[in-house]
C-alpha cells in the first residue's frame, strides 16, 4: 500500500513570497490533516478535512494560509505572503476509521523563509 505522498520535499523562499505544498493521502482515507512542525516542537494541527469539507481550521492563520481538498483526495496548502516564522516542516497525514483515527504521515516539506 502506497503511503502519503508530499511535494516538494524542500523549499526555500524569501519573505513575502508565496508557496504551495501538495499532498496525496493513502487511497481510501477520508480524513486529511495538515500540520506545522517547528524545529524542536511537536506537530501542530493547521487544518483537518473530512472528504472535501473542513472539520477544523481553528489554528490556521487565515490571513496568509489557505488550503483546499478538491474532490476529496489530493490537497494543497498555500502560504501567501510568507513570513520568517513560517519556516518549519509541513506534514500531511491521513486516516481512515478502523476503530481509531490512527494517522499516517507523509515525509513532510521543509520550508525555509529567508
Amino acid at each position: 500500500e502506497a503511503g502519503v505522498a508530499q511535494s516538494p520535499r524542500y523549499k526555500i523562499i524569501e519573505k513575502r513570497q508565496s508557496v504551495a505544498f501538495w499532498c496525496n493521502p493513502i487511497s481510501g482515507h477520508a480524513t486529511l490533516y495538515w500540520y506545522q512542525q517547528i524545529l524542536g516542537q511537536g506537530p501542530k494541527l493547521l487544518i483537518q478535512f473530512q472528504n472535501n469539507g473542513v472539520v477544523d481550521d481553528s489554528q490556521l492563520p487565515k490571513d496568509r494560509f489557505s488550503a483546499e481538498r478538491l474532490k476529496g483526495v489530493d490537497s494543497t496548502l498555500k502560504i501567501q505572503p510568507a513570513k520568517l516564522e513560517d519556516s518549519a516542516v509541513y506534514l500531511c497525514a491521513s486516516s481512515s476509521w478502523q476503530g481509531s483515527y490512527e494517522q499516517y504521515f507523509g515525509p513532510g516539506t521543509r520550508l525555509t523563509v529567508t
Partner: protein
Amino acid sequence: ELKVEQNPLFLSMQEGKNYTIYCNYSTTSDRLYWYRQDPGKSLESLFVLLSNGAVKQEGRLMASLDTKARLSTLHITAAVHDLSATYFCAVEGLYNQGGKLIFGQGTELSVKP
C-alpha cells in the same frame, strides 16, 4: 483546552538500561498515540492505546494508558542505540472531531554505548 506534556524532554541513556517516558494530559480522553521521529524524517506510528488500562508492547518498547490519571507511559527495556530518536505522544481531542490530535513536545532519546 487540551494540553499534553511529556517528560523528560531530553533523555540520555546507556545501552542496556531501562527508563520511562511520561505523557500527561489535561482533559478527558481515552485515545492516545505514540509516534517515533528520526532526525529529518517523518513520524512513524508506534502504538495506539484506546482504553483505560491498555498496554501494548513491541520489542523493547511498552506503552500503557491510565485514563483516570490522564497519564501514559512509554517504557524502554534494555535500550539499544537503534532506539535513539524523538518520541511523541499525542492525545485525541473531544469525540466526533475526527481524530484531531494534540501532540506533546517530544522526548529526545539518545542511547549511548
